[in-house]
């Protein structure tokens, strides 16, 4: 296969039209044919903006200020709108994050595939096109029979939908493909299949692939090269092994340190501060305000890319000084003496309108310990946690708090029981009432408990301090806060009534990896200080290893394996757990 450049981005800058502020700037990337470049960064770092620019598209209110993008020999930014339309799906194609919303729910998948081919006049006849569709379906490992092609998108699983999306993207033999977090909503085993398919197709057809993600482990597993973005700039790029083994930019080092890994019990470390939005970014290196190595020179101008060795380059004036960044955690992992049981579930079954989805689950969450409940989507883990929190009506069996039997719904429970079990929700954007100051939201459990509003005020300030937020935040509204801050507020609200049990439902899944590490750190500290019993519900296996003492693996509504997290993840006994763990991408495993 030739090593000519499949995609070349030269000095690209995109602006907000209204203000002229840069969203991304100084983007220079080259992807050779048949290689996958992973573009990583936090949300808001501009990675999707770059991805869309490759399709010569900018979101409303955004414009290309300057730069060139070559797909093969064609410069795509200068094309007229008719020509742009022609290259999309043909020369360069796109796989979006959510397959469910990118396929037309009213059209059969066979027809949708045919449309792509017809739009680009691919294949001379209908027969040729039909043959090409079958070929594509086979390449993405889906059935090729007519019955399958007659299906509607909703008749397919998420992984199948995403593979149809891949088939559409590869249908007209593009030379460049942009994949925007295509596996984010998928379970690990499905993700593994999709990643395999992507790797296979790009290698076989010599496609240059730009893979956008926030998941470092996926990059380590899939990509050949990596570019790390921060605040609209590429701060480091190089081959996967170079970057992960020897990250040169302080930001990259923090990213790697914050990523949990299934292959080892690693204490993950977060980082203070947050990236600024366009127009508010500091002069010079955008990372300087959060960087412990920053000096005055960093605040003058954006650092030039310097070679670190091999193909690795980094935009940091200290890239070649091997100064240690303090990313090591000083915290010793807890040495455990088994706590008293706080919450006990005895053969709990639960369902929705007569359909049982949770079968005979028995669990014990002990004081001062963290039990992780892991499983793929639909395994019933959230239903279990909602039953504990008194948010699920239909369940049988027994849930006990300190030996006391609990009623099914929160409203039926005694107020002390309601306050003793606190629930932290998955999405911090949805769990706080946007019309109420966060101080009022936090104080609410106290007011329900009969405290006066003024009496609650001091407690609110104390609890804000516990989650490392200043007291002034009490007067803010949720929309003034970042995702991580909102999740801290949600945790503060859960802590204010001095609970014994904290149920955390996927609390980090909406957060960036550095923020996730900080929240996990906070939860660990609180658990140790306050002796909380914690149920940590998640699909994120690597994270479990970094946070939990015990782990229970759920599949199809049943507990398949339970035990200390080190032994369950390090040495799984059940086949299901083993397959789950082997499907989970890992940086350490990929670097071996």
């Amino acid at each position, binding site marked *: 296969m030739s090593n000519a450049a499949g995609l070349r981005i030269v000095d690209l800058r995109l602006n907000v039209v*209204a203000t002229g502020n840069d969203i991304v700037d100084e983007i220079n990337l080259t992807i050779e044919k048949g290689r996958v470049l992973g573009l990583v960064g936090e949300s808001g770092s501009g990675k999707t903006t770059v991805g869309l620019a490759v399709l010569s598209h900018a979101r409303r209110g955004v414009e290309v200020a300057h730069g060139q993008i070559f797909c093969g020999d064609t410069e795509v930014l200068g094309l007229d709108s008719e020509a742009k339309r022609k290259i999309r799906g043909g020369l360069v194609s796109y796989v979006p994050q959510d397959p469910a919303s990118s396929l037309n729910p009213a059209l059969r998948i066979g027809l949708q595939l045919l449309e792509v081919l017809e739009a680009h006049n691919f294949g001379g006849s209908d027969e040729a096109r039909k043959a090409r569709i079958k070929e594509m379906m086979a390449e993405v490992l889906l059935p090729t029979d007519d019955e399958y092609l007659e299906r509607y998108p909703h008749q397919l699983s998420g992984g199948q939908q995403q593979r149809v999306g891949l088939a559409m993207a590869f249908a007209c033999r593009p030379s460049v493909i942009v994949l925007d977090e295509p596996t984010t909503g998928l379970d690990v085993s499905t993700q593994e299949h999709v990643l395999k398919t992507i790797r296979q197709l790009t290698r076989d057809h010599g496609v240059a692939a730009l893979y956008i993600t926030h998941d470092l482990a996926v990059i380590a597993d899939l990509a050949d090269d990596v570019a790390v973005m921060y605040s609209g700039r590429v701060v480091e790029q190089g081959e996967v092994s170079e970057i992960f083994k020897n990250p040169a930019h302080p930001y990259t080092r923090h990213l790697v340190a914050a990523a949990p890994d299934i292959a080892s019990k690693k204490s993950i*470390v*977060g*980082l*203070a*501060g*947050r990236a*600024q939005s366009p127009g*508010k970014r500091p002069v010079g290196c955008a990372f300087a*305000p*959060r960087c412990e190595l920053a000096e005055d020179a960093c605040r003058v101008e954006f650092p030039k890319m310097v070679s670190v060795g091999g193909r690795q380059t980094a935009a940091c004036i200290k890239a070649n000084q091997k100064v240690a960044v303090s990313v090591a955690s000083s915290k010793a992992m807890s040495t455990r003496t088994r706590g008293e049981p706080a919450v006990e579930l005895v053969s709990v079954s639960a369902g929705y309108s007569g359909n049982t989805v949770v079968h005979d689950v028995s669990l014990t969450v002990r004081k001062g310990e963290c039990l992780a409940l892991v499983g793929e989507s639909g395994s019933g883990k959230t239903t279990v946690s909602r039953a504990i*929190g*008194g*948010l699920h009506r239909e369940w049988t069996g027994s849930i006990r708090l300190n030996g006391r039997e609990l009623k099914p719904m*929160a*409203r039926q*429970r005694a*107020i002390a029981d*309601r*306050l003793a079990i*606190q*629930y932290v*929700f*998955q*999405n911090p954007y*949805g*769990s*706080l*009432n*946007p*019309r*109420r100051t966060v101080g009022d*939201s936090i104080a*609410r*459990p106290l007011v*329900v408990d009969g405290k006066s509003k003024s009496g609650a005020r001091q407690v609110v300030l104390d609890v804000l301090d516990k989650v*490392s*937020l*200043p007291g002034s*935040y009490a007067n803010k*509204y949720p*929309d*003034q*806060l*970042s995702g*991580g*801050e909102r999740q*801290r507020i949600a945790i503060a*609200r859960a802590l204010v009534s001095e609970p014994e049990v904290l149920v955390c439902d996927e609390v980090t899944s909406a957060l960036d990896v550095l*923020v996730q590490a*900080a929240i996990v*750190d*906070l939860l660990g*500290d609180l658990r140790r200080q306050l002796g909380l019993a914690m149920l940590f519900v998640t699909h994120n296996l690597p994270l479990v290893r970094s946070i939990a003492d015990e782990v229970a693996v759920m599949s199809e509504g049943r507990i398949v394996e339970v035990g200390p997290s080190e032994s369950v993840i390090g040495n799984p006994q059940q086949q299901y757990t083993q397959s789950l763990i082997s499907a989970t991408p890992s940086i350490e495993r990929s670097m071996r």
Partner: protein
Amino acid sequence: MSSENAGEAKFVDERPPSLVRQAFRLRRTQIGAVLALMLISVALIGPFLAPFGSTEYVDLPNTLSVPGTIFGTDYFGQDVLSRFLFGGRTILILAILATSIGITLGTTLGLTAAYLRGRADEAIMRALDVVLSFPQVLLSLVVISMFGPSNVLIIFTVGLSTTPRIARIIRGAAIGVVERDFISAAEALGESRKRVVFAEVLPNVTSSLLVEMNLRLTYSVGLIASLAFLGFTPEPNAANWGLMIQENRVALTEQPWGVILPTTALALLTIGTGLIGDGFSRVSAGIDRGGKGE
């Protein structure tokens, strides 16, 4: 312990201005407000400025040039301007009261249906559909012709016939809100249903509520004026814009002011409230967000 806020002392996010403030940045809302305020002040202050009484005989009927009057006399020899100045108050007050009833009931029912879901939702909404299936004017006419026109009856029929429309809109807006986690959070605390509905859900549908309130006020003004035009007023000779149009339309060619003044007033008032409502809906839908109006 790490904290995310350490490096962001300078990062102060401004809160976006409230819906009302944003709406009043739009030219259309400003114009609407000026029109509505103008007509509301005519209706409320008018009676104090009227040169004659509302039913006072001034001169021969349908005369244009009568000394001491600006617009002449109407079909009954009463001063057109005085009738006009007196004639807005009833309509406006009736419309506001009727709309308040509709809003209160409609919001309560809509929020309750959205929050309770299931059978309660079905029961409430299907019952309202029955009311909705009658055209509003027809329903009001039937009721008023059965019991005779009285202000209270007009307020209630107009208010109740408005209720299902408001309930539908509010239910639609609330159905997405009740799914969000902060509602679950309130339930986990064991908050009462009433509090969840009115303290958690209601504040999150205010934009729909504002839009709907304006729209329904506009329609109620029109409806009550139409009822008066059709003769359904408690006092047959009371000054009333709707009634004025009906009384004076026969003499349109000789004495046009008796029709022009109330028609213009009703048009400007409904255009005004309509523009305000339109401004609110544009802002809440984000159409003109960031723009300066057109």
